[in-house]
């Protein structure tokens, strides 16, 4: 690689203009100034180029050197990613701490993956096998839950002429040699380097027919995410974006989680670092960090690296997708990424569009979300993998009409709308079930019917109708008072209250309720809708709602949330039986007292 040297011409914040760098390319990584700060070329002119610097530029002066590296901004991929925490350009934070102490200083170079650590490699090909890019040549049990599949890199195709025997190897040792059709022999190592700004290739997209179970009832019920889907969660501060994304990272039934804290709080990353190693993945029972990669570019870390962090994250996600895993990528917050884009664009003097954002905001967002999806991976096997992307959006003033929210909503298929009023009354998750939506609801219906219950779609529709009606009725009550409502409508209000209080609210902080297995979600909804139906029937034959509210099963319903994950069935069986009995007793009493002639037909 030729390493050209140029000079700094001018500096304004993270944007540095350079002259005299020969044949520098767009998105090439350069070293800026005497301190060798890391930067990336974002504009190329005649004899000049503009660089965004991923580190603070105080003290850097014009005239200092700029050195090209010939490399694009890339990440290192291979065993060793899981359980790591990186900054926005894949520098491991623990190593940065070792080098520079508790505060991050500048000009530090650390690689993303440990080159000395030895991994237990098991070959899966033999000499003479024909391989193509994406084929699995062996595997490494990286953690107890995730086996890292070692793939043939792009550009390598041919016949295996050498493969090591099972044993311990570093990621840079040659483990396999492949001879191509020209007779050239390629060395294959476990480590791959991939540029971050373009997606890794795959064979094709496949339909998304499986939900990503999040364990959050309101989401799994009303606006489910699909494996491979894209979703956004906009909301003003304090409405629950971060808690919800953390909940996904902890409980969603993805196999690998990539979580990027992009321009948000330091303590939120610390919380994940301190808590997640002690939490167990509900599917495997293993510590969560064994399936997780964290990327932390907090708000006080350099802005340009914030812009890059999103791409670094999605490239890591693609690497696991290509191995055939279902990956969930959480980005908190995409608005901070957009602001980084705006800041750089402003310093470049580009013509601003709405609210100062560059005109390409929408297309950049779309490019990012397009890297999600469920795909057939490269290689001869029929490996399917997916990346589900969930992004937080932080609209100024909580106003969804702003450019980032609007541009995002044009792209994503799931919209979880957070509601300030709900958050203010501590109704969590503060997701507005009437304005939120999932465009995957229909494609996921088959799965739901098969795995939860054939009546699932009906239950969901009925619950939604009750909430809708509730909203209308409450507007009326605000105008004329509750007395004006007929008994049947009071029953509706009561049913909706049960849905909201006993089903939709779910505390992320409660030991049990923090996660709700899909089977439990189904049964809880069924109990409430059954009660609502029976209540409506009873009211239709003249029973007062007041009388129904005396049912002691209501207390049990109010506490079904905290039924344990592994034994909720017996709790819910008991509730259903008790409910049946209390209604029977009611009709018995009524017919004894001659008030009702007969129980309504079943």
């Amino acid at each position, binding site marked *: 690689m030729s390493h050209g040297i140029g000079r700094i011409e001018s500096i304004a914040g993270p944007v540095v203009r350079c002259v005299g760098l020969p044949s520098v390319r767009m998105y090439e990584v350069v070293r800026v100034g005497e301190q060798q700060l890391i930067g990336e070329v974002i504009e190329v002119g005649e004899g000049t180029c503009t660089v965004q610097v991923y580190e603070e530029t105080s003290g850097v002066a014009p005239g200092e050197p700029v050195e090209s590296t010939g490399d694009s901004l890339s990440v290192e991929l291979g065993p060793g990613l899981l359980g790591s925490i990186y900054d926005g350009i894949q520098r491991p934070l623990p190593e940065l701490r070792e080098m520079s102490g508790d505060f991050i200083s500048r000009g530090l170079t650390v690689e993303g993956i440990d080159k000395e650590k030895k991994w237990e490699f098991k070959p899966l090909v033999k000499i003479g096998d024909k391989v193509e890019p994406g084929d699995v040549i062996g595997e490494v049990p990286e953690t107890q839950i995730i086996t890292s599949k070692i793939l043939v890199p792009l550009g390598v195709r041919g016949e295996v002429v050498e493969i090591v025997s099972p044993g311990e190897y570093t990621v840079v040792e040659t483990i396999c040699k492949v001879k191509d059709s020209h007779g050239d022999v390629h060395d294959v190592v476990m480590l791959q380097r991939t540029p971050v700004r373009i997606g890794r290739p795959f064979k094709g997209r496949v339909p998304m027919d499986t939900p990503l179970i999040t364990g959050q009832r309101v989401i799994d019920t009303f606006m489910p995410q699909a494996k491979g889907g894209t979703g956004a969660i906009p909301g003003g501060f304090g409405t629950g974006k971060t808690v919800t994304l953390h909940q996904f990272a902890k409980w969603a039934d993805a196999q690998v989680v990539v979580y990027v804290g992009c*321009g948000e709080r330091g303590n939120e990353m610390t919380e994940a670092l301190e808590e997640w190693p002690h939490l167990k993945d509900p599917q495997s029972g293993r510590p969560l960090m064994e399936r997780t990669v964290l990327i932390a570019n*907090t708000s006080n870390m350099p802005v340009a690296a914030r812009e890059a962090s999103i791409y670094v994250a999605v490239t890591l996600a693609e690497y696991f997708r290509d191995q055939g895993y279902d990956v969930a990528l959480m980005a908190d917050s995409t608005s901070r990424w957009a602001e980084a884009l705006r800041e750089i664009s402003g310093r470049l003097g580009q013509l601003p569009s709405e609210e100062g954002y560059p005109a390409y905001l929408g297309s950049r967002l779309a490019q990012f979300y397009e890297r999600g999806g469920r795909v057939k991976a490269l290689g001869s096997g029929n490996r399917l993998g997916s990346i589900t992307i969930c992004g937080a959006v932080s609209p100024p003033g909580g106003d969804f009409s702003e450019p980032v929210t609007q541009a995002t909503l044009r792209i994503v298929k799931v919209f979880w709308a957070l509601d300030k009023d709900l958050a203010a*009354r501590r109704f969590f998750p503060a997701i507005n079930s009437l304005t939120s939506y999932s465009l995957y609801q229909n494609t996921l219906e088959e799965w739901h019917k098969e795995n939860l219950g054939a009546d699932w779609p009906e239950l969901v529709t009925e619950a939604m109708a009750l909430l809708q009606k509730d909203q209308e009725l409450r507007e009326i009550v605000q105008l004329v008072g509750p007395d004006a409502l007929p008994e049947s409508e009071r029953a509706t209000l009561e049913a909706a209250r049960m849905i909201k209080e006993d089903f939709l609210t779910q505390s992320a902080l409660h030991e049990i309720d923090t996660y709700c297995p899909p089977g439990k979600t189904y049964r809880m909804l069924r109990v409430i809708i059954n009660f609502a139906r029976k209540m409506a029937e009873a009211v239709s034959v003249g029973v007062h709602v007041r009388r129904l509210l005396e049912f002691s099963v209501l207390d049990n319903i109010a506490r079904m949330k905290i039924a344990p994950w592994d034994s909720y069935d017996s709790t819910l069986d008991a509730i259903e039986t008790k409910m049946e009995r209390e209604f029977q007793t009611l009709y018995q009493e009524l017919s004894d007292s001659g008030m009702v002639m007969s129980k309504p037909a079943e």
Partner: protein
Amino acid sequence: MSKKSSVAYRTVSDVSGPLLVVEGTHNVSYNEVVRIRAPSGELLTGTVLETGRGRAVIQVFEGTSGLDTDVTAVRFTGETLKLPVSSEILGRVLDGSGNPLDDGPKLTAEDHWDIYGSPINPYARQYPRQPIQTGLSVIDGLNTLVRGQKLPIFSGSGLPHNRIAAQIVRQSKIPGEEGEFAIVFAAMGITATEAQYFMKSFEETGALEHTTLFLNLANDPAIERIITPRAALTAAEYLAYESDMHVLVILTDMTNYAEALREISAARSEVPGRRGYPGYLYTDLSLIYERAGRINGRNGTITQMPILSMPQDDMTHPIPDLTGYITEGQLPLSRGLHRRGVYPPIDPGPSLSRLMKEGIGEGMTRFDHKEVQAQLYYGYSEGIDLRDLVAVVGSEALTDRDQKYLKFADRFEAEFIGQGEFEDRSFEQTLDLGWNLLSEFPERELKRCDPDTISWAKERGAYRAA
């Protein structure tokens, strides 16, 4: 670097607003400190905002009045802005850039620290978990402050944020612990009367010896406000990380800070974001607020309580909005509560302490804290909804249950939120008071509490439902 300091440029080509443009410069680095000699002989300070092509743009902290293009001389120091730090600064009154204002001895610096600091490695942080008892029920009971947290007060003109802040400083403690504490107080554009109020209040409680004041008052140069919070936080970091102290930093008023930033941005003709504030306001504020926290293996901590006034009480205004996106919660004051004579008028609805969840409960405050908090919130928001309804349909239309909630909301405001300016309640007292108010409701109504917890509260005599 020293060779540079000998060069004095007299090539000022433009003076406009807070900015100065110097031509023919060599090797001037970004963000370096500049000393300016005005025609009057006065010495001013600035920093480089832009450099290159033989030209440097400088922001002048004292403002540019009196500067010209002929005589004004500019010297580049080759250094970034540094604060001389030492533990001697406790008990001292400094100006907004850290120069002594009082008649105390000259400060001997133990070190010089860059006022912009460096970002804390998230991997080095320790999650804040120790609750601070402020003695105010509305904070301690509903939105507990935790050591190492950044929790702002959102206020408005005429609201008693200063009295609240002074009370918090007076009363704050960690029950059963007598660690070394210090207060760093940064005033940005507040009036001399307000500053006097704080000094007097610190003096009365004997806190003044543990306090460093950085004062940029209303009649001090506006652009200096860009430095004030940074100098204050640098001092706080020294006290916390070198002298193992628990430091409470009060920054007031952050709105004035943001306005200084806007002035610079406008002078540079930058593309404005919302309401004329620069697009990087979020990042800029986070560089201040994220300096709160706790670091693994270090004993001291930095807790921040920024105070800001919301223009027209508008919480969606960029300053409170972006602050709320960075800080770990917020305590907004309510004009409604204030008018109804409730002190402190902290509005529970939009209030939040994000770090509370890890800082309360068994072994920290009391095991029933979470449940009491949830039930009080539920009761108060039900009560408020009903108030709106009563305004329309009258109270006769309400059921028994509704009447209870109405009464609860009134008592909650008067007795739980409301308290004396010199009344210091313990966590125990606050939680028992909560149960006392919940006694308005029968047991079955307390859906957010565990039946066992209710029995416990009954036995204790705190919950006495009819």
